């Protein structure tokens, strides 16, 4: 059992709505990718930066800001907070900027079908 359709259909091609939706669909995927991939890279780099600092900048990370609170501790807590911020950002972006486009494309496909 598979979710793939049989692939034996002969290509007819050339229906306007289909071309249009494909082009617009490519736009949607571009929009997804220009957000999703830089975002993933940014959050990986942010963790890497912390590891780098912890390894090579002992002095900086051990700088005391107040009492027992060091730069390293503040950065650690910021990582925690930033994880939630990144998560929230993505959900917001997807709901506001991606879903409407996807809905429009679907509507057009359905019109083309009728």
């Amino acid at each position, binding site marked *: *059992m*598979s*979710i*793939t*359709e049989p*692939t034996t*259909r*002969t*290509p*007819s091609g050339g*229906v306007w709505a*289909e071309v249009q*939706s*494909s082009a617009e*669909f490519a736009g*949607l*995927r571009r929009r*997804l*990718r220009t957000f*999703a991939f830089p*975002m*993933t890279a940014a*959050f*990986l780099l942010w*963790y*890497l930066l912390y*590891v*780098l600092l*912890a*390894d090579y900048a002992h002095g900086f990370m051990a700088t005391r800001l107040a009492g*027992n609170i060091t730069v*390293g501790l503040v950065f*650690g807590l910021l*990582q*925690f907070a930033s*994880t*939630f911020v*990144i*998560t*929230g950002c*993505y*959900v917001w972006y*997807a*709901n506001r900027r991606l*879903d409407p486009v*996807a*809905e429009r*494309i*679907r509507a057009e*496909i*359905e019109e*083309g*079908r009728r």
Partner: protein
Amino acid sequence: MIIAFAIAPLVLVTLLIGVRGVAAMRTTSDFLVASRQVSPLVNSAAVSGEYLSAASFLGVAGLVVKDGVGALWYPVGFTAGYIAMLVLVAAPMRRSGALTVPDFAEGRLASPALRRLAAVVVLVIGGLYLVPQFRTAGLVLSEVSSTPYWVGVVIAGAAVSITLALGGMRAATYVQAFQFFLKLCLFIVPAVWLMLQVGPAVRDQAVHPVEFTTFPRDTPVVFRVPVVLDVREPVTVRDNRGHPSLLPAGPQPVAAGQSLVFPAGSAVPRVRGESPPGGPGWQRPLLDLRQAGHPLLGTWAVLMATMLGTMGLPHVLVRFNTSPDGRSARRTAALTVGLLGIFYLFPGIYGVLGRVLVPQLYLAGATDTAVVALPAQVNQGWAGTLFTGLLTSGAFAAFLATSLGLLLVVSGAISHDLLPGGLARLRATVVVAAVAVVLLALPAAGIDVSTLVTWAFAVAASTFSPLLVLGIWWRRLTPAGALAGMSVGLLASAGAIAVTLFAPPLHGAAAILVAQPAPWSVPLAFATMLLVSLRGRPPAWSWAAMLRLHLDEPPGATRDRSDLRHSTRVRRRSSAVRRAARRLVG
């Protein structure tokens, strides 16, 4: 004793719910459809409940005791993995309708060979994930009730396979959700109690670690694994019958199962190949894997494996299909990050307290039991016993929830993808798989639970992660490319793990790259998949397959009733998008 009042009720309740689950499936035809209306909060609790295994409940704190606060990178990776999953996989995976990665593989690329390879990968990941769960059950039981190691392993195997063979758990999202909140309570309440019970002196030591060099009191150590002790000063120890014997200075082999009582004030011997808790480097927030002296590489390797591996964990992916649509799958992943964040605030507390109160577990090779060993150190009365019981119960809940989910996808992969058969075959497979895992877990007592689990992540990151990321985001992926990339990733990661387990130990950066292969095996798998795909032509219907992944269904669209009893059964969806996609093909 502790078995009776901590574990028996838990197993009984799980069994009862399992039986009820079967009844509900038989009588309520709408039950499965209703389960797709699960709200993101409940569903994310279920995801977290299935995800928080013995590695999270016990393993992280154990590694903090042994290796230092750098071990907290494990939970960071375990949580951050959900961000990668959220951004790259969650919603398209849900829209695909595929319940498992083998389904997705065949659905996106229509290649039965790819499906079988994916099923094999599920077996490898499932094995690497299940063995440490069973092993930890054995270790915890022998710590709290002095039973031999194998007893706990066998109890674990029996409990899980009987529950599954009776047929429950499948549709019971709410059971997993309940399990999450249960685990959360059983983890947080004892942590708060411990912090209040220990005196200010212990709290002070917890934040200002000193190396574990002398035994502060008469300390019994039950060695779980054979070790070589480097004894620095001759010391008279007593065995469990009270007979004194002299340990002369120099290397002293100690057999597994031996029990020695070290007198107060004597010097702590070193374990060959390990650094003692609290020493220099313990406080550094980096992971020095295998004491190889490359903490940066070690930390990055673990982060890479856990972050990219999460999206390919078969038992977690299944859960996302109980969301009604892609949008709520996305919200589920986002909420999961929050719920896991709350849980992972606490292993660090157990870890630093364990370093002060039970550092001798590092000699015994049983730091994974630090969490359940703590209450007895703080309170010898009924309260200590009660909290030991609570934590043991939580640890069993952790390992039961994860094992049930994993054993089901493993059995599903065998009986649906590899050797197709009916429901009876599925049930038999469950028992056979459980026996196999028990047999594998028996000799695995000496390997840290988090290490083994991270290997499962490394294999997932080197196989399923490229398949999912490229399959969802790159139209030109071809079946041949996916096959080649996954084979290379599987051989590289599993081969490296085999070398670590069976070959003589390596040193330096090579040791890390073999013990934690993600930094090179993941790029290698991605590159193979890209290059082989570029040499071929994508199938004609690849646009249609992509459309289905990225366009949501309208709410309330007609959906076929589906049968979720088989984890790998894929739902047929006859929506407008699907019909349109079909037209694009034809």
